[in-house]
């Protein structure tokens, strides 16, 4: 299914055990430094430098730390973590163990979205295999290397992909984001220091530690190192998971996946932005187009108002309801767009909705609420005639 263009890392060859062995050959702080030097950014969407997060976690003093693999892949149009867990699970598990060694944690949890429950048996078997065939044969100094991994299932809540909500869910609570600080690296699972990274981040780490930060740095751009998996769907001939070097032009991606008569592209999932022809020469990289991994293509036959309504319905349902800007904001944006569709409101009302977006961006509690204005504003701006003046 993966069609990598020339260079691949994440979907490339990997000898099981080679990453963790390379890690154990050095000190934990050297592993952290290697990740920092690689310039790796978290692959979950926000793009925070992974090595920095590891250093913060390593610096925490505690009798217990936990590594959490965020496999609650819920962003609409994203299915690359599912691909990785189905096809390269060992890299992910090994990446978790490397992180464990680096920050001083001996336990890991994979928070797997409920929709992917089907992979539980195979994942648990892979965990047994890696413990038996790889981990049990390794030593740290004279001590046996130990790292335990268990899988926890989500139960159908998009917001649980947000790391605070995910931790609340693991702690047996409603999956509601909480105020920060404290950050999970200070107070997370069972109120102890916890490092949360995305599935793809862990898979990438296995390769970085195996081959080194210098090698990794040869891929990508100055501020976005390496490659990235993209889930591509919508009006394309060849939907699927693709690995591209960061900094790839959107136009090249569209050509490769057989997108024709493209009207617009939703980049970075529903939380990302909508772009049209004039932006197709931009690149997928930090600081340019969001490289969150979800690309949904719309051709010229698609009604963008219908698309926008679909997006807003999603957010209105998935808002956890805890903070007012997100709960009411999503509801009002959806209601507003429906009224504009029916011609019940003048475009002056659209200006009010834009003000509401500014309030949401200022005051929503977590990434979910902060993101809702992005698709709303970019789609309405790109298609004023089609949506506002219809």
């Amino acid at each position, binding site marked *: *299914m993966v069609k990598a263009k020339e260079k691949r890392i994440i979907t490339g060859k990997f000898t099981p055990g080679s990453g963790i062995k390379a890690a154990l050959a050095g000190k934990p702080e050297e592993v952290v430094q290697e990740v920092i030097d690689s310039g790796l950014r978290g692959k979950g969407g926000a793009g925070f430098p992974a090595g920095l997060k590891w250093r913060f976690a390593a610096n925490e003093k505690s009798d217990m730390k936990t590594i959490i693999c965020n496999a609650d*892949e*819920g*962003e*609409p*149009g*994203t*299915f690359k*973590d*599912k691909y990785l867990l189905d096809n390269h699970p060992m890299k992910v598990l090994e990446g978790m163990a490397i992180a464990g060694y680096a920050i001083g944690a001996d336990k890991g949890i994979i928070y797997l*979205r*409920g*929709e*992917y*429950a*089907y992979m539980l048996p195979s994942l648990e078997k892979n965990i047994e295999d890696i413990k038996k065939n790889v981990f049990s044969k390794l030593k740290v100094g004279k001590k046996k290397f130990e790292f335990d991994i268990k899988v*926890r*299932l*989500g*139960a*159908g*809540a*998009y917001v649980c992909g947000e790391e605070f909500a995910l931790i609340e*869910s*693991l*702690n*047996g*609570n*409603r*999956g*509601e984001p909480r105020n920060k600080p404290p950050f999970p690296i200070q107070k997370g*699972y*069972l109120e102890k220091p916890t490092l949360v990274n995305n599935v793809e981040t862990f898979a990438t780490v296995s390769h970085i530690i195996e081959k080194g930060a210098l090698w990794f740095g040869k891929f990508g751009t100055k501020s976005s190192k390496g490659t990235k998996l993209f*889930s*591509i*769907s*919508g*009006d394309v001939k060849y*939907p*699927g*998971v693709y690995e591209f070097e960061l900094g790839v032009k959107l136009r090249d991606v569209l050509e490769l996946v057989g997108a024709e008569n493209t009207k617009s592209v*939703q980049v970075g999932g*529903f939380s990302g932005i909508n772009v049209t022809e004039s932006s197709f020469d931009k690149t997928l990289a930090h600081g340019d187009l969001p490289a969150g991994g979800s690309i*949904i293509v*719309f051709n010229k036959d*698609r009604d963008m108002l219908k*698309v926008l309504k*679909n*997006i807003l*319905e*999603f957010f209105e*349902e*998935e808002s*956890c309801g805890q903070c007012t800007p997100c709960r009411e904001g999503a509801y009002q944006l959806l209601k507003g767009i429906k009224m504009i569709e029916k011609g019940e409101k003048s475009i002056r009302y659209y200006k009010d909705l834009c003000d509401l977006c500014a309030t949401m961006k200022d005051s929503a509690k977590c990434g979910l609420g902060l993101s809702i204005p992005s698709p709303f504003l970019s789609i309405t701006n790109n298609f004023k005639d089609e949506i506002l003046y219809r």
Partner: protein
Amino acid sequence: MECRDGNLVSFVEGTVEKYGKGRENLLPVLREVNEEFGFVSGAAFIEISRVMDISIGEIHGVASFYSFINEEDRGKYVIRLCKTISCDMAGKEKIEKTFERELGIKFGESTKDGLFALDYANCMGLCDKAPAMLVNSQLYDSLTPESVLDIISECRRKI
């Protein structure tokens, strides 16, 4: 207490024993009860509360947050059709109509024989094989009206 369902009591006790009594095990316990009985009944809430020593209100608060935990008996097969954009564009509507006409109910309803419930779900990560759906915890992709008929027949055969 004489009308307590022994089956339920032992299932809850066994599940809590498997995971542990700590609060962090609440969601896995709720999931397993839901999977076993199709929903988490009022009686199940009482048992979980008793065994895990968490108030029923707290448990209800958690259960109601997650869309895959049913708090009422929706039916033996809960069908959740993805309605997010990639599935929507790939012909979700045809699938929707096939279900409604074949089962004689609308989305949000259950059949009188207690076999099927129709619901929507949000993106389930099968956008490249849209349209997709879940039947209980089983994923189905690349749906066509014809394959929907087959799936319905298969469910009926299994009872």
